[in-house]
């Protein structure tokens, strides 16, 4: 398959913009020492949309993703779910608010098997906290096959360190997509994937948006972004630059905005 700007978009003109946002982050700031990773950033996710979170290296995209995922504490900021304030101060709380994440650094434990990685932190439990191993084994393979079917993943008992970068990324994607709730954050999810697997992930995002799971797609590939996103949020040096619906911009314009900031 070749690189194309052909849209995977649903019929245009859905009324997403007028709806109550699914999730809002307001006035988010985060400093690492004297580096201001985020300064007073606003961000929202609307129902049934794929929003592209774009910006240069170091713009603060991953920092925002990690804050929304509850794994980094913001210095400042308020968060609303369906208009009501919500606490996302830990991974568990963020998950309870409906957020699931594919992290840029993949977040797998290399010394553990695929199966143990998929269920880490959400093991199916039986009596006294013991894991239901058979169920884990059976579903692990199904999960992998269902989303990003990738060659070479032959057994859920393979260790992640035995996998290639793309295979590991596929595991991370499958894990997050399987456990998704209402919002899926994808931080450069296709950076290690082949063209075919990348297409699959782009399609998954579109399908999820149609079925009611909004996606936040962080990428440096504007072609991919332009094909799947309904809206673009552009950041630069830790600040918002603009939020623009796809219908009001072009690929060239987007490129210009990102390049000039």
């Amino acid at each position, binding site marked *: 398959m070749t690189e194309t700007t052909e849209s995977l978009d649903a019929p245009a003109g859905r009324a997403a913009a007028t709806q109550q946002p699914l999730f809002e982050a307001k006035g988010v700031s985060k400093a690492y020492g004297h580096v201001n990773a985020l300064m007073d950033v606003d961000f929202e996710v609307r129902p049934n949309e794929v929003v592209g979170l774009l910006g240069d290296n170091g713009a603060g995209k991953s920092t925002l993703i990690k804050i929304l995922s509850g794994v980094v504490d913001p210095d400042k900021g308020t968060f609303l779910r369906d208009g009501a304030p919500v606490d996302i101060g830990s991974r568990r709380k963020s998950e309870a608010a409906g957020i699931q994440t594919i992290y840029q650094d993949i*977040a797998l434990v290399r010394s553990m098997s695929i199966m143990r990685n998929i269920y880490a932190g959400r093991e199916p439990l039986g009596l006294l906290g013991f894991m239901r191993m058979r169920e884990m084994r059976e579903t692990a393979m199904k999960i992998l096959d269902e989303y990003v079917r990738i060659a070479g993943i032959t057994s859920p008992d393979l260790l992640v360190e035995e996998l290639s970068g793309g295979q590991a990324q596929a595991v991370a994607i499958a894990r997050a997509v399987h456990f998704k709730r209402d919002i899926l954050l994808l931080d450069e999810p296709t950076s290690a994937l082949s063209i075919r697997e990348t297409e699959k992930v782009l399609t998954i995002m579109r399908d999820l948006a149609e079925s009611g799971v909004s996606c936040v797609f962080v990428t440096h590939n504007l072609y991919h972004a332009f094909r799947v996103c309904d809206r673009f949020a552009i950041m630069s040096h830790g600040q918002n630059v603009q939020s623009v619906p796809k219908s009001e911009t072009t690929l060239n314009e987007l490129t210009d905005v990102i390049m000039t900031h």
Partner: protein
Amino acid sequence: MAESRVDLAAMRRPAERPAWLRRLKNYQAINIVIVYAALLIVLFGWSLIGDFSFATTGNLSVLARQIPITAIAAVGVGLLMISGEFDISVAGTFTLVAFIVAITLGEFGWALPVALLAGLATAIAVGAVNGLITAWLGIPSFIATIGMMFFLRGIVRFVSINPQTNLPDSMAFFPSEGFKSLLTGQIVGPISAQFVWLIVVGVIGYFILNRHQLGNHMFTAGGNKDAATAVGVNVKRVKLIAFIICAVTAGIAGVMQATRINEIEPSFATLSGFELKAIAAVVVGGVSLFGGRGAIFGMIVGAALIETVDNVLVLVAAPETVFKGLLGAIIIGAVVLNNVLGRRAVS
């Protein structure tokens, strides 16, 4: 898409090795089992053809009584190391818990179960403090538990003061005969009760580590702290629990030792090198010094190997310092080997 499913299923088959072969290959403890078996063959052979008293009933039964005590402590140290932390204070915990049980039983006249509960509470307190300092204050456990080691030495010195001489002194420990035979009695031949207790601890340890959610969280927290946080594992809590388990197994070993020899020696906290022994046992047994990898069986065989080496050095009348030096060399050698021989891990 259905087409590609068929293709992939076909591609999958040739790569699949028999399950037992995979298991064996992934089995961390296989190296240590081979090494220990070879060592035993050499030692038995030497005893048969040479003038060497290793394979006598007397020596073997001493060894079989000592190994479980070290191995039980090693299981705790190993679980903690898999969780990504060290405990250098286990010799202190071992000694202090034994003293607490002996004092509350012998001097305060408490009932044995109550005295044992006091010992358990002591162990939990030591483990909890180690865990809180490490996980919540972010002090590396290596440093935090060295601090605890010195603190416990001080406490042991204090509680072991003999009022007559005003000096630390060993203390007699005579629990009831029933308790003694339950904990360390002889069962058959060289098989003693502590051997059965080791199996109990080993089985519990296995189920915690490999079948329980806590074990999965230990591997996750020790294998990649950031990934653990990213999937919602409570790393601090897991480490706290691992520190407590480690201290409790050290305490159990301490009480077992005191029961076996009817005495507690305060110098055990300072001179025994027991913490090094336990760390050496688990590292030799394939547990990664860096966390995230290890198996219970390896820890136990590792403890057996370390105690066997100690025993042999005593038999050949090597000075005590030789053993300490050798322990250091074994730890370093095992760490290097663990890295070179590849990284077997958790399936």
